[in-house]
C-alpha cells in the first residue's frame, strides 16, 4: 500500500482529521527525534527500607536450610535456598542418602505450591469466612464430647502417613479415645506395599507391568541406583540389563534394553513361562514369537547373573502373583529391598469409613490433608455417605471438593512453612523445618491434631517431643544442619530385609494353590471381550493434587509431550481399527461409567489397550486447573483400580485441541539421538567442517560447556522444572502452548522410532547449545545476543528489540519470545516466589537458556573478591538430575568431568551438519546392557 493510498484510507475512516501530506511528514520527523529520547526515560524513584535490626548474616544474606517435602507420605529431602527471609529455590540435599542431591519434578514444583494464590487463608464455616477462635471452640467442644463417649463415632481420615510425629499424635489420640477409628486414603496404593529396589546392585532387572523409574516418591532413589549400575556398565564393570514387559510405555520401558509391549493379562503367563524356562523346561507353548524371544532373553540373562538379578512386579497385581515373584527372587538370590513404603497397617481404608458413614455410625469425621470426594471412584459413594455425618471437618491447603462438603474447612500450612518430620524413601527420618513464617493464618498438620487434643504446643514443640530434644540439644542442631535425625535402619548393613511383606519368604507351594482372590485381573490368555483399560496417575499432576500448579500443568508429559490436558491414549493399531484420530473426542465406557475425552495416539501401547490418566477434571481447589482434562476416577472400580477389562471406546462428536510441545513423534530418518551397540563402542569421528569464522579462543582457562549422557536420561523432567524455578520462566497457558510458544528454556524431546507397535523410545534434553558459531549472534541486528569470552552465548534483554531474527536463525529452536507480558497480572504472593538473581523478562524480548549465568557470575564475583580461583558451578538442571545425565563445567580444564565426558567416544553434537560448533554435546545411548 503506497503512502498516498493509506492517507486516503485514514481520511475516509477519520474524516474529522485534516490530514495533509506535509503535516504527516512533519509529525513523523518529530517522532523520530523524540524516539531518541524515548529509551532514556527517567527511572522511577525507588525507596529503600532497611531493617530496624539487621538479621544475622546481614540483610540480604542467602540462607540454606535442610528440610523436606512429602509425596504420598514419603519424604523428599531438600535444601531450601532462602533470600530475604523466604525460599526461592529448592535443591537436593547432597548429604542425604535417600536422594544424594537430586530431586524430582514434583519436589521442584512444591515451591510454587507454597506461593499458590488459591491456598486457603482463613477457616471457613459452611462456606463463609470464620476465625480460628471459633474453629478452636468447635474443636474443643468435639474433644469434650469424645472424652465423654470414649471416642465413639469419631473417624479420622488421612493420606498415607510416614511422619513419626503424626503417627505418635494419632496413636496418642487413639489411646485417649479407644472408640475412634483411623482411616488412610491412599489413591495410588497398590495391592502390596511398594518396595524400594536396590537397583545399584542389580545387573539384570526384569520389570513386569511396573515403573520403578517412573514419577512418584521413589523415583529419585531408584533412578540414582539404576544410573549407578548403568554407569558402572559403561565403564565395563558388569551388566546393566533391563527387561520390561508392559501394556503401556513408561520411563522404565523407555530405558529398557529389551521391551515387550504386551497386554497386562499376559503377565501371569509370561511369569509362568519364565519360571518354567529357569527350572529347565521349555515353557514356550502359550507364547507368541515376540513373547518367546523376550522370555528366552530374560531367562538367559537371569541364569547368568544369579545373585545380581531381580524381578519387579507392579504393586497393583494380585498377592498371589507377588508370592510367585517373591519365590522367584528368592531362588535367584536377589538383593533385598532397601526399604518399604509406609503401609499404615493399623489403619482402616476409606471403604470402611464410607461403610461407617453410610450406616450412621460415624458421628464426626475429620479429613486431614486428603481429598476423597475427588479421588475415590463414584462407585464408592463417598460424597453421599459423607453428607450423612452430623459433624464434618476438613483440614487442607485448598478449599477442594471435600472441603465443599464439610461444615468446617481449616487451612493447613504447607510443609515448607511448618515444623514436622518425615520418613524418606530409604527409611531414614528427617526433620522438616520451616523456610518462612506462614503468610496466611494457617496451622500445621501437627498443630491441627494437637488442637483437637486440646494442646496448644507449637509445631516445633510437638516435633521436639517426638525426638526428645530441645533447642539447646547438640543432637537436634546436628539433625537440622544435616537433614537427618534418624539414619535408615539399613544404613551400613549389606541390605538385610526390613520385615518386608510379600518379598522373600513365600514358598512356591503358595503360588501354585488355587486363587480365591476376588481380584478379577484376568489370568491366562483368554482375552475378555472389550478393550483392556490401564489407569495410571498423571505423570505431572499425579493423583490430582497438582492440578492447580501451573509449572506442572505446563510441564510436557514425558511420553506424549502434552500439557494442560489428559487424553484417551491408544496404540496406532487400535486407532486405525476404530477409525480414531488425534484430538477427536471418544467415549470410554466400562460397566456403568462413561467418560469422554480427546484421543491421543501413542506408539508403544499394546494392542487392544486404552490408557487414561488420573488427576484431571478437578472441580474445586483453584482456578488454574479448572476446565483442564476429564476426570478418570469414575473408571476405577474398588476391586480393580488400576487395570480393567471389558472397556468400550466409541467415537463421540466433536474434538478438543490438545496442546502439545512436540507434534512429531519420530526422528523421521534423522539421527538426533544416536545409538551405539554396546559399552565401549564409539561413533565415527569426522574432522570439523571448514568455517570462515576464527576458532573460539579459550581465554583465561575458562570455557563453559555441557555434556548430556543420553544413555542415562530417563525423561523424568526434573531438569525442566528446576530450570523453570531457577530462571523465573513464565507459564503461558494452553492456547499459547498450542501455538508453539511454551517458554521452557530446556525441553526434553521424546522419540518413538521404528515399528510403531514396538518402537525404540528415547529422550533428549535440549538446552541452548551455546554454539561457537552461533547463527543467532549473526542474525541479531542490535547485538543483543553476543558471545562472551568464556564461551557463553549471552542474551542481553535490555538491548533486545524483538525482531525474532535470532529465533529464526537458530537451527535448534531453543529461543523463546515473550509474546505477551506474562507476569503483569501476577499477585504479590506469586512475585515472592521468583529468584531475585534472574531478570523477570518483559514483553517483546527474547530469552533462552543462559547456562545459569547468574550462578556463574556469582561464583566469578565471589572468587574475584576473595582472591581465589573459581570453584565449581552447577547449573540448575545438572543439580537436580537423579541420574547425573547432565554435566556442566570448564572444558579448558582437562580433568573436569565435562571434559572427560566429551572425550568419551560416544560424544557427538546435535545437528552436526549445521556446523554451529555447539558447546552442549551428547553421549550416544547404548542399546545393549550385557557385560
Amino acid at each position, binding site marked *: 500500500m503506497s503512502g498516498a493510498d493509506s492517507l486516503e484510507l485514514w481520511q475516509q475512516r477519520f474524516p474529522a482529521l485534516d490530514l495533509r501530506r506535509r503535516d504527516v511528514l512533519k509529525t513523523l520527523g518529530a517522532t523520530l527525534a*523524540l524516539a*531518541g529520547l524515548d529509551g532514556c526515560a527517567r527511572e522511577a524513584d*525507588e525507596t529503600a*527500607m*532497611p531493617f530496624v*535490626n539487621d538479621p544475622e548474616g546481614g540483610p540480604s544474606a542467602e540462607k540454606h536450610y535442610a528440610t523436606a517435602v512429602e509425596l504420598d507420605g514419603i519424604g523428599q529431602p531438600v535444601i531450601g535456598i532462602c533470600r530475604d527471609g523466604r525460599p526461592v529455590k529448592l535443591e537436593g540435599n547432597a548429604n542425604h542418602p535417600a536422594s544424594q542431591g537430586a530431586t524430582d519434578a514434583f519436589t521442584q514444583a512444591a515451591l510454587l505450591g507454597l506461593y499458590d494464590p488459591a491456598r486457603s487463608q482463613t477457616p471457613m464455616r459452611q462456606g463463609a469466612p470464620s476465625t480460628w477462635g471459633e474453629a478452636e471452640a468447635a474443636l474443643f467442644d468435639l474433644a469434650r464430647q469424645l472424652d465423654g463417649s470414649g471416642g465413639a463415632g469419631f473417624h479420622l481420615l488421612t493420606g498415607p502417613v510416614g511422619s513419626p510425629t503424626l503417627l505418635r499424635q494419632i496413636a496418642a489420640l487413639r489411646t485417649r479415645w479407644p472408640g475412634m477409628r483411623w482411616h488412610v486414603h491412599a489413591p495410588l496404593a497398590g495391592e502390596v506395599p511398594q518396595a524400594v529396589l536396590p537397583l545399584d546392585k542389580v545387573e539384570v532387572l526384569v520389570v513386569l507391568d511396573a515403573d520403578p523409574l517412573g514419577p512418584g516418591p521413589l523415583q529419585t532413589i531408584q533412578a540414582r541406583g539404576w544410573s549407578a549400575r548403568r554407569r558402572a556398565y559403561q565403564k565395563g564393570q558388569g551388566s546393566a540389563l533391563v527387561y520390561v514387559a508392559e501394556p503401556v510405555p513408561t520411563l522404565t520401558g523407555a530405558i529398557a534394553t529389551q521391551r515387550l509391549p504386551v497386554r497386562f493379562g499376559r503377565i501371569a503367563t509370561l511369569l509362568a513361562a519364565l519360571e518354567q524356562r529357569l527350572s529347565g523346561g521349555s515353557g514356550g507353548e502359550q507364547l507368541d514369537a515376540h513373547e518367546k524371544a523376550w522370555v528366552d532373553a530374560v531367562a538367559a540373562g537371569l541364569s547368568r547373573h544369579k545373585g545380581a538379578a531381580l524381578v519387579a512386579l507392579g504393586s497393583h497385581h494380585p498377592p498371589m502373583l507377588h508370592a510367585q515373584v517373591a519365590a522367584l527372587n528368592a531362588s535367584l538370590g536377589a538383593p533385598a529391598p532397601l526399604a518399604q513404603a509406609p503401609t499404615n497397617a493399623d489403619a482402616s481404608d476409606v471403604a470402611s469409613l464410607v461403610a461407617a458413614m453410610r450406616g450412621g455410625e460415624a458421628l464426626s469425621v475429620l479429613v486431614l490433608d486428603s481429598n476423597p470426594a475427588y479421588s475415590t471412584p463414584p462407585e464408592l459413594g463417598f460424597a453421599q455417605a459423607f453428607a450423612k455425618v452430623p459433624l464434618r471437618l476438613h483440614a487442607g491447603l485448598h478449599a477442594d471438593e471435600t472441603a465443599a462438603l464439610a461444615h468446617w474447612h481449616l487451612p493447613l500450612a504447607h510443609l515448607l512453612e511448618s515444623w514436622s518430620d518425615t520418613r524418606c524413601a530409604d527409611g531414614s527420618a528427617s526433620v522438616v523445618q520451616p523456610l518462612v513464617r506462614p503468610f496466611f493464618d494457617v496451622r500445621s498438620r501437627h498443630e491441627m491434631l494437637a488442637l483437637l487434643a486440646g494442646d496448644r504446643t507449637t509445631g516445633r514443640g510437638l516435633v521436639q517431643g517426638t525426638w526428645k530434644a530441645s533447642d539447646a540439644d547438640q543432637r537436634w542442631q546436628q539433625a537440622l544442619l544435616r537433614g537427618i535425625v534418624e539414619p535408615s535402619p539399613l544404613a551400613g548393613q549389606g541390605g538385610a530385609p526390613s520385615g518386608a511383606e510379600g518379598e522373600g519368604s513365600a514358598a512356591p507351594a503358595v503360588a501354585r494353590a488355587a486363587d480365591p482372590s476376588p481380584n478379577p485381573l484376568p489370568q491366562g490368555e483368554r482375552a475378555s471381550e472389550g478393550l483392556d483399560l490401564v489407569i495410571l496417575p498423571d505423570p505431572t499432576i499425579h493423583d490430582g493434587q497438582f492440578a492447580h500448579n501451573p509449572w506442572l500443568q505446563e510441564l510436557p508429559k514425558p511420553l506424549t509431550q502434552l500439557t494442560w490436558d489428559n487424553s484417551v491414549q491408544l496404540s496406532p493399531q487400535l486407532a486405525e481399527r476404530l477409525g480414531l484420530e488425534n484430538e477427536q473426542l471418544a467415549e470410554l465406557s466400562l460397566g456403568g461409567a462413561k467418560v469422554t475425552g480427546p484421543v491421543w495416539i501413542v506408539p508403544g501401547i499394546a494392542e487392544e489397550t486404552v490408557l487414561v490418566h488420573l488427576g484431571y477434571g478437578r472441580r474445586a481447589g483453584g482456578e488454574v486447573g479448572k476446565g483442564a482434562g476429564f476426570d478418570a476416577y469414575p473408571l476405577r472400580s474398588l476391586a480393580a483400580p488400576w487395570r480393567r477389562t471389558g472397556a468400550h471406546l466409541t467415537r463421540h462428536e466433536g474434538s478438543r485441541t490438545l496442546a502439545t510441545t512436540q507434534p512429531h513423534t519420530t526422528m523421521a530418518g534423522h539421527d538426533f539421538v544416536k545409538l551405539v551397540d554396546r559399552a565401549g563402542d564409539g561413533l565415527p569421528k569426522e574432522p570439523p567442517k571448514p568455517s570462515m569464522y576464527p576458532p573460539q579462543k579459550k581465554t583465561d582457562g575458562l570455557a563453559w560447556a555441557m555434556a548430556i549422557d543420553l544413555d542415562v536420561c530417563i525423561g523424568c523432567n526434573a531438569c525442566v522444572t528446576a530450570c523453570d524455578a531457577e530462571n523465573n520462566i513464565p507459564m503461558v497457558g494452553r492456547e499459547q502452548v498450542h501455538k508453539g510458544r511454551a517458554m521452557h528454556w530446556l525441553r526434553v524431546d521424546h522419540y518413538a522410532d521404528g515399528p510403531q507397535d514396538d518402537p525404540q523410545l528415547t529422550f533428549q534434553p535440549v538446552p541452548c547449545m551455546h554454539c561457537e558459531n552461533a547463527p543467532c549472534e549473526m542474525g541479531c541486528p542490535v547485538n543483543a545476543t553476543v558471545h562472551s569470552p568464556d564461551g557463553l552465548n549471552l542474551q542481553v534483554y535490555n538491548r533486545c528489540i524483538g525482531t525474532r531474527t535470532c529465533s529464526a536463525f537458530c537451527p535448534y529452536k531453543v529461543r523463546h519470545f515473550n509474546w505477551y507480558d506474562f507476569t503483569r497480572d501476577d499477585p504479590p504472593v506469586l512475585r515472592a516466589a521468583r529468584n531475585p538473581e534472574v531478570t523477570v523478562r518483559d514483553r517483546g524480548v527474547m530469552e533462552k537458556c543462559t547456562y545459569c*549465568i547468574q550462578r556463574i557470575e556469582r561464583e566469578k564475583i565471589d572468587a574475584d573478591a576473595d582472591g581465589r580461583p573459581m570453584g565449581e558451578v552447577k547449573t540448575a538442571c545438572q543439580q537436580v538430575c537423579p541420574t547425573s545425565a547432565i554435566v556442566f563445567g570448564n572444558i579448558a580444564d582437562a580433568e573436569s568431568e565435562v571434559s572427560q565426558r566429551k572425550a568419551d567416544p560416544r560424544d557427538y553434537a546435535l545437528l552436526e551438519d549445521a556446523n554451529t560448533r555447539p558447546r552442549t554435546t551428547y553421549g550416544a545411548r547404548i542399546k545393549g546392557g550385557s557385560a
Partner: protein
Amino acid sequence: MLLVGASAAGAGLVRNPFFTAQGWVVDQPVPFSHKHHVQDDGIDCRYCHTGAETRADAGLPPTHTCMTCHSQLWTDAAVLAPVRQSYATGKPLVWHRVAQLPDYVYFDHHVHVKNGVACVECHGRVDKMPLTWRAKAFTMDFCVDCHRNPQKALRPPQMVTRMDWSGVNPDLLKEYGIRIAGHKGLDPNRLTNCETCHR
C-alpha cells in the same frame, strides 16, 4: 538535517541532570548529613554501609545503627523523631534511593571495593554533602569508561574510604593503578563484556 539535529539534542538531553539525577538533592524522611557524620565526626563509610565490602549491595544502616549514637546524643532533636519512632515501633525508615541503578544492571558492590575502587570514585565527595545527592551520572558510559580503563580508579584497598586524594602524587596513583591492574590481570575485554553487568 532534522535527524542529525534531533540526535545531537537527544544525546545532550540524555546526559542532562533531569534524566540522570546528578546533583539533585533527594528528599529524605530525616535530613541526614554525610558532611557532619563523615567530616565532622570521622565515621567510616563501612560503619553504616556494612555490605560495601562484603555483599553485592552496600545497603543502608538499620535503625539500630543510628541508635547506637542517637540513644545518647541529640535524644530530643525533632529532626531525629522519625528514627526514634522507627526504633520504638519496629517499622523501618523509608529512605529515597540516591545511588540507584536500573533493574537490568546487576551491580556487585563488594567486588569493586575489594579490588580497590575508592568510594569517592562513584559517590563523589560525600564528606562535603550536607544533604545527599548523586555525584556522578550513572549512565552506562560512566561505568564502561572505568571498565575500559580500570587502572585510573584503583587505590590501595585499605585506603578505599579516603575522600581527599588531592594531597597524593597523581603520578604515584597512576603507577599504582597500572601495576595493580596488571597484577590482578584485569582485562578490559573481559570487563566490558555484556555478561559482567547484564545477565
